[in-house]
């Protein structure tokens, strides 16, 4: 089963490139534009890894 990665970033350009990169490596990708969405996604189904941008808007 493919490993799942949750990308948490508010910059669309970074999200697009990270998503492309991780999918190319065979990972399943979830996207969250902010912290709230990230926690909601985790509560639904926890990924194997979270790629987290610390400079999210407060």
């Amino acid at each position, binding site marked *: 089963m493919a490993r799942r990665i949750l990308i948490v*970033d508010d910059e669309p350009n*970074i999200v697009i490139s990270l998503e492309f990169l991780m999918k190319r*490596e065979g990972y399943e990708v979830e996207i969250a534009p902010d912290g709230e969405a990230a926690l909601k996604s*985790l509560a639904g189904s926890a990924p194997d890894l*979270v*790629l987290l941008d610390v*400079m999210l808007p*407060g």
Partner: protein
Amino acid sequence: MNGFEVCQRIRANPSWRAVKILVLTAKGRDSEIAKGLTLGADLYVTKPFSTKDLVAQVRQLLGEAG
């Protein structure tokens, strides 16, 4: 909620203990890196990053070879 808080919230929940956290931060922000690691991040990568390095770090965290 910033990334640090997300990190903290993930680590505060025992059912997410197995979730690896890779933090992306701007280059030269050493205090951010230290803070992220203290709050439970497994690894950090500074932006701008090389895609090759990032993939290698992800693979390492997930315990995959090569």
